[in-house]
């Protein structure tokens, strides 16, 4: 497994820049891909696509509901639209469009949710997106994918476009460590075991995967051998892998840059309550809003530090067999 993860992690790379590059590659490979933006293309870097393919790029203005509806119309004409705006706006302002047309109507539209989690950190809670996973996950027909680093963005974006139906692709604004090597081959719907262990399984997604790998080193030093799973697809969740981890390690920790209500932690708990009830500790932001501040400091302050993962794992292990 060691070859999947780079130790030490590679130099941090901007995830949004990686996304812009991945969009351009996709534009070359697929003529049916069109990109729409609600006037934030210089924030989310979808503007890199506009520079190369201006005839396939549409800035619809600051109009998130029309953004999604226009994409629905383009999809009806056989295009594969990738709509771009901030993640929280898809999950709130444009949600009715997403539910009615992408999910009920099964329009083949991809949503690239930029600035997710706390990653638009200085803009504050109005721009943070800490409930988007809960909202998107409960919609029938929706697929939810969360890349963990810039390599994952490049590997997952083409798969998303090839998948028929709506997808929510959750992106981080900031520079994040490169954790994956070239051997990383994610497949939508399948979790990946990044490190083996028998005492507890830590299941995480997005930029929290790097923090979980760091926490694993601390845990090993204190005698706990955690299994580390990257769950890049929140929906459809890899139920088989979650169940197997519960059976084999007897305790689970979930780690996500999201409210502890409704996201990865809830999804995992739903599965094991059915298949193999074991202790599940959820790491994420508590049921509250955060504040403005530097990104990594915010993650640390609001319950998503490396140490929070370590403590949760210790509690999960202690709760086994009780």
């Amino acid at each position: 497994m060691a070859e999947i993860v780079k130790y030490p992690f590679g130099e941090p790379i901007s995830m949004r820049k990686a996304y812009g590059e991945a969009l351009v590659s996709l534009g070359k490979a697929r003529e049916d891909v069109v990109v729409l933006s609600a006037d934030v293309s210089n924030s989310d870097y979808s503007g890199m696509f506009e520079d190369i393919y201006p005839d396939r790029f549409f800035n619809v203005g600051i109009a998130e509901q029309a953004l999604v509806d226009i994409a629905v119309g383009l999809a009806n004409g056989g295009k594969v639209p990738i709509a771009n705006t901030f993640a929280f706006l898809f999950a709130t302002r444009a949600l009715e469009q997403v539910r009615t047309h992408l999910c009920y109507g099964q329009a083949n539209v991809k949503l690239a949710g930029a600035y997710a989690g706390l990653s638009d950190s200085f803009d504050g809670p109005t721009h943070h997106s800490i409930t988007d996973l809960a909202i998107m996950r409960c919609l029938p027909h929706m697929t939810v994918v969360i890349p963990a680093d810039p390599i994952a963005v490049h590997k997952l974006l083409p798969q998303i476009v090839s998948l028929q139906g709506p997808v929510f692709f959750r992106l981080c604004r900031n520079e994040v460590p490169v954790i994956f090597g070239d051997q990383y081959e994610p497949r939508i719907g399948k979790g990946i075991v990044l490190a083996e262990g028998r005492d507890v399984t830590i299941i995480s997604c997005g930029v929290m995967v790097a923090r979980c790998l760091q926490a694993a080193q601390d845990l090993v030093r204190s005698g706990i051998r955690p299994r580390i799973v990257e769950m890049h697809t929140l929906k459809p969740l890899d139920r088989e892998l979650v169940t197997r981890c519960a059976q084999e390690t007897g305790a689970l920790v979930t780690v996500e840059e999201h409210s502890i209500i409704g996201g990865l932690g809830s999804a995992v708990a739903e599965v094991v309550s059915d298949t193999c009830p074991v202790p599940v500790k959820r790491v994420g932001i508590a049921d509250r809003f955060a504040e403005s501040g530097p990104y990594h400091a915010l993650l640390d302050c609001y319950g998503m530090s490396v140490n929070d993962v370590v403590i949760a794992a210790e509690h999960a292990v202690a709760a086994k067999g009780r």
Partner: protein
Amino acid sequence: MITKREVITIPESPVIHPFGTRHTPEMVIDLSKRAINFRIDVLRMVYQNKTGHIGGAFSVAEILTALFFHHLRVDPANPHWPDRDRFVLSKGHACAMLYAALAYRGYFPVEDLMTFRTLNSRLQGHPERQKTPGIEVPSGPLGHGVAIAAGMALAAKMDRSKRRAYVVLGDGEINAGVIWEGALAAAKYKLDNLTAILDYNGVQQTGATIKVMPLEPIAEKWRSFGWHVIEVHGHNMLRVLDALDEANEIHGRPVIIVARTTKGKGVTFMENDHFWHGSPPTSAQFEAALSELQQEVGRWQK
């Protein structure tokens, strides 16, 4: 005597008047009569199943008849033909009328109409794409149509196709902000292959539009958004047919046909009364409405 060949060529669905044919008096009479017959079908559907929206369905009868039996270039035998014209009933609650038009146009059996809104029916309470051939997108939550049709028109332009996008809007519906987001975008991209038809019946769920949310000056609003506006009497079949043709001739701008209509058109006690937005008739009301509509069909037959 009917020869064998003639028997074979008798169409299963009623004759349409293909796009491009002249709007003769015979055609206008035929289509006008059909519109009233569709009202009778809708009345039966809503009465039998005790659920559905009559008022807003009756006001779009002529508009939908003109579209599906003359103007739209569609093929019920091949509903996914890539170059078909696209149609969106943005005021999805009027779908009983759309279902009647689609059934008689040949998209599915006319007998299915009476299953409207019942379990295991292909005819959902509001349009659904997967279950009903001829439906492009779901609708019902109001306000989507302009932006969706703009996306359809944009795709047609990218493909250099002559296909067009059509959307029927309710007047209450255009209270919704996303309508105007779509209107801005359609003007920005000069979507002259997009025709909107506003069913301007003046009544919405709880009362007159003038009281609920005033819309006037309606034509000026759309003009100021960069649209070409055509105003017609929406129950005058010839005027509706002519307006649809006129819209095709406008270049560089999207077009809206503001069709002045009557909610509940054709049944005196239903007309202009918001009670008939979503209420089914009693048996006495059904008989009275049926009788009035049948007399109206009779008048066109003379």
